[in-house]
């Protein structure tokens, strides 16, 4: 890394909310790679392979928007969040914040940067220190960054933050175990807000919550985004929630992004076979929509990231796979669907119709797609009285 870059880096990090240059994304990720060594032995460790958790990820995040990052377990989405938070060092690639490379920041510069990027975790039980009061948890960021809020104002600001996330401010002296999962998640959100960040990485923030509480937290996140102009990277496996909250969506499979685009692009002009299968697998509540859903059943499991297939990583489970897929990894580029897709045979399909779209029968001729129909278990006709 050159002297020059180091200085500019320090400058950018020194000003908490530096203005954004024209045409520059708030966050830009280029060729991000993270390989974890697979080791054997206890005394003398021997590297026997690499787990390619993240293998060349590119995306941008604009100010004030939500980028959904979707994928199944093991696709590398959580590793991406750790890399963005500098909780892990990437094997290769760079992260640019407002145009400056922040990948290898250290010490004070890194600490300053952290004010701008914060994180909300999935598990509301493990993300709060059980031996700290709620007040201490929410105000801890100010112990580390004392210039954000003066010590005499901290008590008041803590109460304000608690109130803002929908908690009684008199709870400052309570401990996390006295709260429900949804309330704990609100405490975690208050902590993330304390440093007035520009970007919050939400790592599965609602998937551990009860159904009736999830919506409370999703709505809170949406309100906070509007009020504070936050940009979110919303990592989730639940495509329904991601659709609800995201402006843009990136779909990950085995360490790389296979499709990225606007919410409409991904959900209505789905072009990658994996995204199509993923969408098709999401259960649908509305019987009318369900009847017209394309049904794609993937076979087999996700291959091990320690030994991914050659060429396109999805080819082992793909019904479109041909010889070229094993030889050449498809680039993530626009192939005429209006958004980048990493598939040699990309073809835009609407897997699930949105509610306001007029029903029209879908042709079910592609291999791997069975005739549209409900997936009702059991053949016995139920008495479906219309109430």
């Amino acid at each position, binding site marked *: 890394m050159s002297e020059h870059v180091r200085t500019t880096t320090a400058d950018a990090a020194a000003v908490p909310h530096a203005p954004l240059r024209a045409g520059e994304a708030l966050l830009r990720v280029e060729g991000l790679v993270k390989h974890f060594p697979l080791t054997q032995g206890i005394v003398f460790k021997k590297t026997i392979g690499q787990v390619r958790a993240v293998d060349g990820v590119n995306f941008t995040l604009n100010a004030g928007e939500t980028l959904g990052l979707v994928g199944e377990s093991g696709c590398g989405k959580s590793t991406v969040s750790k890399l963005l938070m500098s909780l892990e060092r990437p094997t290769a690639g760079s992260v640019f914040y407002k145009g400056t490379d922040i990948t290898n920041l250290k010490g004070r510069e890194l600490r300053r940067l952290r004010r701008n990027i914060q994180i909300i975790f999935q598990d509301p039980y493990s993300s709060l220190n059980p031996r700290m009061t709620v007040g201490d948890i929410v105000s801890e960021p100010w112990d580390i960054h004392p210039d954000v809020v003066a010590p005499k104002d901290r008590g008041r600001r803590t109460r304000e933050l608690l109130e803002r996330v929908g908690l009684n401010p008199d709870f400052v002296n309570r401990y996390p175990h006295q709260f429900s999962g949804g309330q704990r998640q609100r405490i975690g959100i208050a902590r993330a807000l304390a440093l007035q960040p520009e970007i919050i990485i939400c790592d599965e923030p609602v998937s551990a919550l009860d159904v009736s509480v*999830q919506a409370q937290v999703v709505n809170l996140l949406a309100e906070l985004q509007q009020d504070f102009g936050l940009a979110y990277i919303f990592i989730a496996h639940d495509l329904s929630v991601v659709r609800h909250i995201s402006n843009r969506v990136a779909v990950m499979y085995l360490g790389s992004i296979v499709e990225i685009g606007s919410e409409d692009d991904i959900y209505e002009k789905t072009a990658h076979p994996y995204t199509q299968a993923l969408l098709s697998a999401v259960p649908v509540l509305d019987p009318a929509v369900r009847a017209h859903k394309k049904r794609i059943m993937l076979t087999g499991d996700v291959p091990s990231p320690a030994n991914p297939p050659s060429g396109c990583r999805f080819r082992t489970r793909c019904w479109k796979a041909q010889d070229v897929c094993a030889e050449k990894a498809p680039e993530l580029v626009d192939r005429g669907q209006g958004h980048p897709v990493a598939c040699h045979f990309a073809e835009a399909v609407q897997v699930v119709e949105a509610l306001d779209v007029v029903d029209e029968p879908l042709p079910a001729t592609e291999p791997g797609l069975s005739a549209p129909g409900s997936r009702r278990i059991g053949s016995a006709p139920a008495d479906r009285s219309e109430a």
Partner: protein
Amino acid sequence: MTSSLTHPQVSGGPTGSALLEVDDLHVEFRTDYGVVNAVNGISYTLSAGETLAILGESGCGKSVSAQTIMGILDSPPGFVTGGEIRYQGRDLLQMSAKEQRDIRGEEISIVFQDALSSLNPVFTVGMQIGEMFRRHRGYSRGDAKKAAVELMDRVRIPSAKERVGDYPHQFSGGMRQRVMIAMAIALDPAILIADEPTTALDVTVQAQIMDLLGELQRDTGMGLILITHDLAVVGEIADRIAVMYAGRIVETGATDAVFGAPAMPYTQGLMASIARVDQKGQRLNPIVGAPPNLAALPTGCPFHPRCPRATPRCPTELPLLREVVPGRRAACHYAEEVLGV
């Protein structure tokens, strides 16, 4: 509690006589911190070939009721304090331990959420599946292994013959759940209880497992009780649904009818609060508050503190599960208004 006065059945199974009847079941947990009323008088029936979904949030008692049916309730602290569980007319709770064992496992079996902790890590999956045949059917070691391979084929585990000697950790989450299903259906049970069978799995694997359960049910005609918190999963596979809240069934009926027009504000609230993949940008309308503490239930209707329709009657009078329109029951004083009839 007054629910013992009347305990209407969730009836209307499509094929007539009921395989399983749960009648006014009460279960409580006696803990150091007081008595937790986990199940407060639930009743339902299940017929052969039918899929009944029991829908509810964590702590609503849906899993406890399943554990009670299977006789695997941790006791103490859990105690059945009332009610009957009749399998083909005979009360399981009154049977001797041996009779219970014969029915459970042979006639009623269960698949849990966490397949990894349900499988013994030190035995091969073939041995664990084969054990069912050895213990209940007296198969020889060789026959049990052959039967295990057949079963693994049936739950569509690829190259079953080669994998029968593998250990649980060598399988993926979805494959382990298939192993669990293989063990559950080994003895051709009449009833399969699936307790959150896909909650720990990815969505594409969930679809595979649900598909498999449906196929097995079609082949065998068994009754399926699906316990879940996921409304959309229920919508996709269940014939009938029983919505549970705070240890009670608060609404029942045919799935599409209930989801088409709920008769209970809780069901309505759940439906308004979930994000849907087939709707974009819709506003989520969450239910305020959190599910109640089962050790200190609200008086009257347990949902009244969170209910937008609550009136002064609700905290004083417990609404019983009653028929609102034919085939539909709900536990709400204002079910007709909610339903709009």
